[in-house]
């Protein structure tokens, strides 16, 4: 039996492997499968209602003139936003060699992939004739009809499909060395599965040489991509002349909001996952402390954007713009606006306190507030602005139907279900990168990095 390592050098590489491998190599219990069953039951209900919607038409939703974009588009913007933190943590912080990313980036990256998958479904749900979704893409056809590349919706189709492809490849590439490690410990079907997924990786000097360069370049490409995707999403609104949408600050405002909501979702998922999968020794309070600081910073940027947006509406002197914002604060959706302000601007201020940043229960509650606040923000911008357009005689306020509510719940079931499946069958924490930054992990476990 190997002698125990002295305390001052723990954890060793072996211990890192043991902690991470046990999280996904052990056979899941009944409670896990019940949870998966619950998630996919929600998906089933959503799919059934979507099928009904396809059969009967969009009349089963609450969409009525003038509010023709509402819950589905809100869901789309929300899920694309959730995706952004994964790329921020995996690519942007990789380029900056940020120390704390190693313990959390795989979970964030996985979340990105499933959030983009979910987001990609939302515009399809919004289509009356979903079977013609491919009309957004250029393809040779007998009538020489092509998409209008001056339309932001076409930019969106290119941006989101590129984002989905690149985030899937980036996640897959990072998984290769870890899955190869899992292959060496697995038996039965898992060994075959991991052997196929690891592509026979053995970590030779030649493999690492090309891997490191390709991974660096992928991170370099993903960095401007993440900024462009949510900018493009914001231009879906900002390019229109509708009061409440037509604003030049939308791109940075949306990108900051995306990172804000995404990092909050990382915390929402990581806090229970860390406990359930016994990952306390590799995902430490130091990691959460830093995630909380990102939430705080982006919350302040989002608050600043709300103030700027309101100031500009007043400063233009345009009565229509002013009326839109007056209705936003005090109209029928006013309570949603104030809820959004509380969740996005007030609640995160608690994170100025280091004690709260290190209190995972409090942090988890704040992250839930942010999730609610950011979904609400998108709804207020999208449905609220459409409801009070240029012509007061057309004003009409939207109320979601049960179809939209349950399909929205289904998207959450789909996202959480896929994430839960991944976490139990693939390495949700990167062993390779934890070993690269083992010194920092050792310091974090001794509390030297945040006390």
């Amino acid at each position, binding site marked *: 039996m190997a002698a125990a390592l002295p305390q001052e050098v723990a954890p060793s590489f072996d211990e890192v492997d043991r902690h991470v491998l046990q999280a996904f190599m052990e056979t899941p219990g009944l409670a896990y499968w019940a949870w998966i069953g619950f998630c996919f039951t929600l998906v089933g209900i959503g799919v059934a209602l979507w099928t009904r919607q396809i059969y009967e038409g969009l009349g089963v939703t609450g969409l009525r003139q003038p509010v023709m974009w509402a819950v589905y588009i809100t869901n789309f913007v929300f899920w694309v936003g959730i995706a952004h933190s994964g790329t921020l943590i995996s690519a942007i912080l990789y380029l900056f060699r940020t120390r704390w990313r190693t313990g959390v980036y795989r979970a964030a990256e996985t979340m990105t992939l499933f959030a983009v998958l979910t987001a990609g479904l939302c515009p399809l749900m919004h289509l009356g004739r979903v079977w013609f979704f491919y009309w957004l893409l250029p393809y040779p056809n007998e009538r020489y009809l092509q998409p209008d590349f001056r339309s932001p919706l076409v930019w969106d189709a290119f941006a989101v499909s590129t984002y989905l492809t690149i985030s899937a490849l980036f996640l897959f590439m990072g998984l290769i060395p870890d899955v190869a490690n899992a292959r*060496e410990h697995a038996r039965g079907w898992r060994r075959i599965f991991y052997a196929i997924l690891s592509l026979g990786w*053995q970590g*030779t000097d030649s493999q690492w040489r090309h891997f490191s360069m*390709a991974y660096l370049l992928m991170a370099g490409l993903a960095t401007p991509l993440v900024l462009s995707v949510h900018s493009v999403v914001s231009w879906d609104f900002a390019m229109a002349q509708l009061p409440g949408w037509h604003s030049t600050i939308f791109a940075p405002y949306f990108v900051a909001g995306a990172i804000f909501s995404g990092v909050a979702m990382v915390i929402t998922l990581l806090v229970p996952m860390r406990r359930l999968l016994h990952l306390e020794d590799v995902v430490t309070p130091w990691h959460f402390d830093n995630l909380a600081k990102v939430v705080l910073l982006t919350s302040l940027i989002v608050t600043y954007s709300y103030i700027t947006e309101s100031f500009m509406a007043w400063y233009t002197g345009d009565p229509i713009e002013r009326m839109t914002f007056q209705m936003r604060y005090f109209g029928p959706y006013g309570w949603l606006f104030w809820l959004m302000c509380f969740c996005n601007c007030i609640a995160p201020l608690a994170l100025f306190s280091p004690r709260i940043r290190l209190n995972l229960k409090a942090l988890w509650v704040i992250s839930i507030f942010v999730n609610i606040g950011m979904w609400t923000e998108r709804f207020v911008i999208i449905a609220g602005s459409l409801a009070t357009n240029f012509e007061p005689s057309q004003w009409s306020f939207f109320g979601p139907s049960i179809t939209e509510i349950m399909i929205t719940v289904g998207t959450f079931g789909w996202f959480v279900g896929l994430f839960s499946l991944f976490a139990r069958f693939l390495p949700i924490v990167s062993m390779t990168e934890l070993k690269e930054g083992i010194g920092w992990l050792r310091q974090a476990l001794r509390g030297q990095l945040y006390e």
Partner: protein
Amino acid sequence: MSETVELAASFVAEETCAHAIEALREAHVGQSRIFSPMPCHKIQHAIGLPPSPVRAYVLGAGISGVITGLLITIGTSWEWNLVAGGKPIVSWPPFIIICFELMILFGGTTALLTFMLMARVPAFEPTAGYRSRFSGDRFGVVVVCDEQQADMVETILKQVGAEEIMRDAA
């Protein structure tokens, strides 16, 4: 005629592994292959190879993505000259967005494909000298050399701090 042997040494730390590579390079013995559970700058530096050519392919792919974007946007706009909102048929600013996205798409996919091609994955046979721990918690140096040199190589590896050395016929 002397036979070729394979010496596989394992190391606990990347520093000692890097020292072993440097010592073997200085002694001009055999050909060595390195295994590690993570990317290590010290080891890559000790091996002394130039940066991977993957970057050149990614650059080429990125440029071809931009060109493809221009061909698609301008080509399809000319195919059906529909004036919308009084804007020019070839409207450069929005087309740049499509070119940018395709640059990233082509560059990213090429990064993965050229990595796979150059790293020779998928690999269906284990590389000679590979041990399962080299994917987990150990660094490996595998030296293929003449039988006469084997003792000297073993001495060097031991001197720099190899944890374990195994000798096989190559």
